[in-house]
């Protein structure tokens, strides 16, 4: 009996150990990444962006950012520097508008256009599932390339994703994901020809109302060396936002 119990316990322990230490499949990882993305909610925050450009020095930008999850609407207002104060961006449905306070006019912008002169593009704010865009890269034997690595002190999965649709911005991305909670700590993005274009680090995470958020992001331009952007989020609120915020009139009012 005791042998039986020990046997069951041993088998159970082995089962738990195998499951604890088993490397997840590509599908699991993509699902976890999608789940992570889906935990988004309405959000209001302040974003401080420090941009370093070769030959141009350092530029500090400040945005107020609103996002409504249900309608996937976005409103961004620039509050610094002084020269760009009041400029705003509004996304409602499929339309992305730029508001220019000097002329009090709205212009439509497309997904390739830069937001506030930063590295962010209008298309970066689109909500698309990882599992619809990517698959995990496989080797010649068809084995998925998922490695367990150390990123500093953190144990992480290094996983290479390749695009399965033609219109994905980066056809190849390498992710370093926290083994326990799947935080993205580092992402390398490659061009279609295979050149490393950007490395992004997400070193600081916080938990608000049970939801995890990266509050510091560092984007390093690997193509044009020496360019770097640091984004820091503060004054984060996940309180529900009114539809009336995501209107041209509200943006115009806010920009005054």
């Amino acid at each position, binding site marked *: 009996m005791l042998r039986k119990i020990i046997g069951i316990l041993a088998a159970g322990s082995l089962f738990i150990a195998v499951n604890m230490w088993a490397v997840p499949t590509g599908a699991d990882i993509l699902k976890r990444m999608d789940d992570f993305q889906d935990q988004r909610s309405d959000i209001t925050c302040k974003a401080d962006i420090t941009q370093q450009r070769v030959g141009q020095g350092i530029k500090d930008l400040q945005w107020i950012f609103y996002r409504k999850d249900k309608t996937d609407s976005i409103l961004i207002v620039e509050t610094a520097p002084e020269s760009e104060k009041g400029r705003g961006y509004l996304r409602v449905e*499929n339309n992305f508008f730029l508001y220019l306070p000097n002329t009090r006019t709205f212009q439509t912008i497309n997904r*390739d256009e830069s937001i506030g002169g930063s590295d962010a593009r209008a298309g970066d704010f689109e909500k698309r599932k990882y599992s619809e865009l990517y698959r995990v890269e496989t080797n010649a034997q068809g084995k998925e390339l998922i490695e367990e690595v150390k990123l500093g002190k953190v144990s992480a999965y290094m996983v290479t994703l390749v695009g399965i649709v*033609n219109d994905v911005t980066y056809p190849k991305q390498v992710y370093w994901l926290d083994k326990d909670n799947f935080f993205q700590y580092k992402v390398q*993005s490659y061009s279609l020809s295979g050149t490393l*274009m950007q490395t992004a680090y997400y070193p600081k995470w916080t938990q608000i109302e049970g939801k995890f958020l990266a509050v510091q992001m560092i984007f390093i331009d690997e193509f*044009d060396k020496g360019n770097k952007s640091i984004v820091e989020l503060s004054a984060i609120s996940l309180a529900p936002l009114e539809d009336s915020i995501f209107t041209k009139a509200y943006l115009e009012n806010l920009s005054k």
Partner: protein
Amino acid sequence: MGLLLKISLRNLLRQKRRNFFLGLAIAVGMMILVATSSFTKGLTDVILNKWLVYSYGHVSITGYESGNRQNTIVRDRERIIKLIKSVKGVKEVNNYLGIFTRVVGNGKSTMMALVGMPDKDAIDYLGNTEDRGNAHDFTNRSIENPVIMGKDKAKDLNVKVGDTLRVRLTTVNGQVQSADLSLVATSKELTGGSAIAFYIPIDKLKDIRGLKPYESGPLQVVLNHMDDPQAALVAANKIHELLKPGLAGYYGDINSGGYAIKAAALTFYTNSNSMNIISSNLPAVQGSWTLATNTNSAAISVSAAEKLHLGIGSSITGIYPDKFGGSTTNIYKIGAIFKPGKDMAKDLVMAGENNFYYNYLRNLPADSLEVSNAFTGSSKSILAQAIGTEWKLLPRTYTSDELQKKLRKAMKEGFEGSYYDVSTMYEAASFLIDLQRGLDMISLIAVMILFFVILIGVLNTLRMTIRERTREIGTIRAIGMQKDDVKISFIMETFFLTLAGCIAGIILSIGLISLLSLFTIETDSMFGMLLVNKHVNFVFTPGKPFIILFLVFVFIAEYLIIKYDEYIKHWLVTLLLVIFVLIGFLLSGIGGNGILTFLILILNMLMAIAYFPARRAAALSAAAALRQYE
């Protein structure tokens, strides 16, 4: 008439010095007029036949996709080129490809326009302008992505011939792309404003940009040598008519669960208006049209569904031969089974634009009559408004503002297919056309002011001559010369003086232009773009035949009015002469300046000016004139 001619010529020779200086003033005026006109014509020639041809074409055909104005692509290049070439006056159709991109050199980077150029054009345009390297290496396919750039930009980027440059851009599908480029030559020609562009073989740029061999960027139409920008509008309107799209669809095998039929697949627009039209005209007997717009879903006709033993939720596979030798497969889940209209094929698949255009545009189907037969209703019918076409043809616009508005509106529609737009240099490069018009008008006004001063001189001289010859007029009137003949003799005198002065002026202008053309101008400024091989470009034209002909008619009409003025009221004669001079002035301004145009215009003006003192002389009675003493 012969006698009057003799008197006029004799009078001209009687006062040689005065007439020489007056003729000289007219000659100098004409010389300046012709030289200025040839200079502005030269600039116009550079702008219309060089700048525009290289940068925009006279007419441009652009395809826009993904609701993005930067994403310009013409999918079936050969078909569109064939249509364009059927328009009269088209000299050639070039495949334009240019991308504004970040270029990284050795530790330096900048934004530049990477322009794809056919080998031959590159050698014609850039050959033998090397500062360093060999421009002919541009055609060497063993070199990876050869490029040529201006020497100053190479210096800015800290690169020399043989070095590698890197560029970052997006492909036609919106993917981030990068490429290494080999600098094979630096050019002395690419300076000033043109230095912003650097050149790569167009096939290489197409590869980098992700275009297939049969696809291209905007097509630039070059018309036969033009000196009238209006020609572009006529050609653009004709091309626009030819670009009317047919139905978007394919004909192929539709398979499901071991059953197969041959059928056409069409597409429908998914905006709310189109969905209403579709659901009310093609009633769904099972499922719904909304369900058919779900990702990878479609609707199928009742007949096809029966033959394939399908129900809602079943999957079908549509396989069609594409235009370029392959075959394409689409898999759809059935969201609706519908009753097709009376002017539609019985066996039919219809996919929403969201599930259709992506594959369709990237794998254009082989031409098939079955597709156009799948819906034979009038293009003006309500149902036709909801059925997808090969592309949407944007309406013609005529100014940059209208073009911008039209594109903004179209890009917001959320259409999943292609838009095609036909624009001319008026919309694409209106600033250049304005520049050209401005130059023409400024030169014409400036020279006409000069001529006005000369005209006052002529008028004054004639008044003096008449005063001096008053007694002579009295004598010839006393021996029987008619009033009319006195008037015409003065007019003829002015006419011959002006004609001689103008001819001398034209000869002088040829000398002046030849002299100015000898100077080589070394400049890095924007002005360098207006030079041809470092020389000022003068274009010597006679003028437009119909304008010359019209001016000749004006001249004859003016002469007849002057000759028969006794039958017309004085104020009306004056008014008509003023009107004729203004018409001549406007015609030469609108119709393009030419040497013969100017010659006839000046003859018209001087004849009109000479009329007033000539009429005064003719009005003198013989007795009164003979009594006149100075």
